């Protein structure tokens, strides 16, 4: 392992220079950046929340350049108080607006839009947390209430100002440095710019879309610590808007078939005596000896689909539950045994996607991950696109795991197509590959570039298949991976009328 922080720029608390100094258990507060031991290594971590338990004070830490799913409650013992702690910048600096206005002109580097967005993100998400009632209210309440809707008198003015800043063309090679050049004044403005675009974001979500680009939509602190689900105990990765009462429970219980949630074991076992569901409440559209697929309409099965979304939100960071599930269809993959059809994973799909997405959200439950199920889900989504006669692509942003799964699926299939045409000594076009695999041409190009297969040689573009990928393909052929048999799909693309569209599906 390389030393922490050496890879890439740091993302934790990168909004400008901070005061540094020694701290102790009692003075360490929310927003501080401290060095915390993670997996035996010291790492920079931002304190997002503090709670007192019987075993002592605990700090909720977000580690520098680690995904949020690795955030955790850390006991005092793991915090290195010998190192300096970076203090959060006091809010009152923001008032020195007039004085610092010329600062950008003086500074060598103009802030890039990227940086602005990121900074604003941090501010926003912290803010949203403040609005959120927590079990740890005593700490949250001590925070100054920054954002109140009453402040909107000069909103237009500020929006204009922020547009100006946002429009500055910036070529930022290094965000870290940029961040240091940022002034609090700019931050304040950008914040408003962000809230301005937030409305656009919500409008976008209203009409379609299941993924949020807006980090403010993402709550930063996990609210459920432990979930009993079927034969497994799951440890959620992200926040999910289950009833607030559940965040106080040590453990939540979810019925494996109807996905109803319970905070109380007695209620749950009573429910289990009454629940008669043994499979997702929809039509089976695919069955082989290994898995089944069910198609479920978000409008007809609102409760079930909402439950599914709540469940999957625990493992999908950018999934938004802002709007209801009506405009989506859910394709649920299950495995069968004598108890019923057990949920493995699912993907949702807009009934009508204006952007040509064939997947909105896609998830394999953690207990089934790394077993090749993700590939089956992805393949199924493309098989449906083939039946529809459309080229499809997953909705963005992808998660890290989503990116890896998709890249693997794409590269495996593209290489298969390429080697076949290389054996026949035929040329192939990107469009040809795309139509064969029902992928968009952008995704094909993306994969070719990511695998460094596209070259420009002797005045013409060529595709070169690297040796290691050929070997890898042979190896994986030996493994006999499971695939979806398109002949077993009993499915016709659902048809929706104009009134469906107008009256909210």
């Amino acid at each position, binding site marked *: 392992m390389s030393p922490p922080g050496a890879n890439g720029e740091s993302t934790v608390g990168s909004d400008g220079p901070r005061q540094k100094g020694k701290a102790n258990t009692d003075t360490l507060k929310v927003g501080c950046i401290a060095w915390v031991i993670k997996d035996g290594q010291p790492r920079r971590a931002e304190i997002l929340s503090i709670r007192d338990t019987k075993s002592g004070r605990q700090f909720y830490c977000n580690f520098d350049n680690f995904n949020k799913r690795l955030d955790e409650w850390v006991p005092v013992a793991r915090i290195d108080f010998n190192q300096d702690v970076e203090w959060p910048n006091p809010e009152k600096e923001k008032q020195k607006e007039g004085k610092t206005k010329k600062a950008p002109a003086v500074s060598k580097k103009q802030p890039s839009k*990227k940086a602005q967005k990121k900074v604003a993100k941090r501010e926003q998400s912290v803010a949203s947390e403040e609005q959120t009632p927590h079990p740890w209210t005593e700490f949250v309440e001590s925070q100054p209430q920054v954002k109140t809707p009453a402040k909107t008198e000069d909103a237009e003015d500020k929006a204009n100002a922020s547009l100006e800043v946002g429009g500055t063309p910036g070529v930022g090679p290094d965000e870290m440095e940029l961040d240091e050049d940022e002034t609090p004044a700019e931050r304040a403005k950008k914040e408003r710019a962000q809230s301005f675009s937030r409305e656009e974001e919500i409008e976008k979500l209203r*009409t379609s879309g299941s993924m949020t680009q807006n*980090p403010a939509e993402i709550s930063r602190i996990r609210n459920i610590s432990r979930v009993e689900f079927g034969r497994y105990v799951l440890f959620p990765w992200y926040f999910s808007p289950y009833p607030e009462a559940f965040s106080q429970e040590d453990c939540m219980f979810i019925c494996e078939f109807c996905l109803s949630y319970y905070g109380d074991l007695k209620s749950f076992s009573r429910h289990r005596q009454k629940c008669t569901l043994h499979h997702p409440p929809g039509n089976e559209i695919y069955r082989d000896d290994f898995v089944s697929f069910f198609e479920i309409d978000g409008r007809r099965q609102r409760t079930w689909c909402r439950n599914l979304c709540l469940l999957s939100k625990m493992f999908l960071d950018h999934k938004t539950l802002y709007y209801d599930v009506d405009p989506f269809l859910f394709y649920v993959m299950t495995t069968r045994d004598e108890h019923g059809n057990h949920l493995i994973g699912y993907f949702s799909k807009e009934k009508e996607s204006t952007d040509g997405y064939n997947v909105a959200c896609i998830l394999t439950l953690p207990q089934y991950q790394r077993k090749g199920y993700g590939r089956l889900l992805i393949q199924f989504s493309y098989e449906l696109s083939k039946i529809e006669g459309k080229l499809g692509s997953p909705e963005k942003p992808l998660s890290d795991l989503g990116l890896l799964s998709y890249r693997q699926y794409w590269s495996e299939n593209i290489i298969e197509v390429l080697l076949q045409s290389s054996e026949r000594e035929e040329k192939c076009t990107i469009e040809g590959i795309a139509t064969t695999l029902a992928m968009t041409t952008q995704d094909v190009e993306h994969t070719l570039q990511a695998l460094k297969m596209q070259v420009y040689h002797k005045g013409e573009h060529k595709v070169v298949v690297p040796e290691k990928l050929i070997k890898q393909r042979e190896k994986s052929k030996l493994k006999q991976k499971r695939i979806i048999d398109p002949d077993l799909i009993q499915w016709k693309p659902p048809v929706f009328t104009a009134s469906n569209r107008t009256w909210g599906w």
Partner: protein
Amino acid sequence: MATRKVRYKKLSVKTPLPVLREDQIDPTEYESLTNESQIATGVEQAEENEYHLQAVLQGAGVAADKEIPVPPPEESTLSYDALYPQKFQKTCTYIRFSQTVEECIGCMYDMTEDDEAFLKLYNQRRVASAQLSDDDFEKIMEVFEDTAYIKTPFAAVDQTIVSYDEMLHGLHDLDKSKVMPHAKEIYEYWKSQRQALGNRPLHPTLKYELHQENDDLDPYVCFRRREVRLMRKTRQRDVQSAEKLKRLRKELEEGRQLVLASHSRELLKAEMLKTDRAIFEQRAQLKEHKIRLGIKTDDEDLINQKPQKRKAPEAPAVQRPPPPSQIRMPLRPDGRPTEADLAQLADRLAEKENELRADIEKKVQNHSDWNKAHVDLTRGPLSPVVGPRPDLSFRPAKTQYLMTPPASASSASLEEPLPMELDKPENPHTVFKFRGVAQDEKSMENPPVYRRRIGRLNRLWIDRRGLASPPGERSEEQSDQWKYDQSSDDEEDTPMYEVDPFDTRALKFRASVPLPPWMSRTTAPPRQAALPPILPPNLPPNLPPAQLAQLAQPPQQALPRPLSQGQAASS
């Protein structure tokens, strides 16, 4: 190393790209060719540089042993079988299902641990017969919760509590004798529980929008309703509207053309009337002149011939509507309703049924015709062998029971065939022994083998091998043998020879019966000899004695050509 600047041609998605393997290109060149351009991953930019993701992406394409770490799930310690006791019946066909979750889980109220403690205490005070069961308790609570939800949707805000009297209405639907004695006390318990929770529903519920200003920022508020969608302008919608407009335009145009056409038609009609009138007047004049001048030629000019023909097709079109009513009218008096002409559904059905019945009867008739000549010698008919057909290799001829003739004729017994008393070698003396087949040990070691196959035009072929020695060439005097065969067929009192039709030697013998000349002359494929379709089992007893005697001679001579070839090939 000098870096050459190459201007790239633009790569279109339609450009045909040659596909090369890495070994088909100069490795040093390849290194320099792979461009290191940054590609958009589709991951949120802030997360793109995360440590674990980058670690995996570094080894892009290679079977990455590096993985992104996630909090690992664990096996549950709860008893799965206790919580999920019901077994699932697998279906043969794909499941089709449309019930909602609410319809599948029965009573919506689930007893909590507090409820359980309360109910236990509550039931302790009562005799066993007057106790409240868990299910009834839940039903009562469900009514309270539902009524409260309907009557006071904003209970958490305005703190109104639905009174017991209002609850009674909902309780009427339940089993009164079981519920009513407890309802009042359960109500008091419910009320206390509600108040403890700030008059919120007892089961934790999701937070829905309340249209308050802080709703938007509250991450717990979810599944907001989407307002009716604005009609968005998309290319598809534009195309659709354009299509609709085009269609409308076309229809209007057609209507206009129709009006124009009928207008000109009416004009033409008026013209025609005028012409007719003119003709009439001219004729009248002509008639007058004729009379006046006393011309007595035939009057064909005065009669309208062609126009009448022309009118003929036109007239019925106008006059057609009246006739039916005129025809129908007289029908009524003779008592038959006009509906009698119409095809009645019942008649149709009866007709159809008759047709079906006739068809079935015809099939039955066909079947019995087909089975007429058939005599089933096997005492217990066998059921047809199911499963794949045996392979088409040669099989030794063994005595065995033939399959039942048509399945429909058999009594469909599924039992294994057993040799019948008669066929057991207790009474071999009655069996006619063929002398014609060699019985030496050599031939016993190599029993004749046969192969049955279907040839072109669905002809059945029996190929054979391993026959001892074929009978000799047919002599001139033997060729007239058919005369005797024919005559003997007519005799009723043919002497019966008891022959075991399944004896190996009998089979062998039958297989060696020489072909009639007309058959051996046909161009049989080399190495294979055709036999007439399988001999029915009842044939041997009916063989005419002359033929039997003739064929029983020791067959030292060679068989007709095709057979000897077959033998040569097989040995």
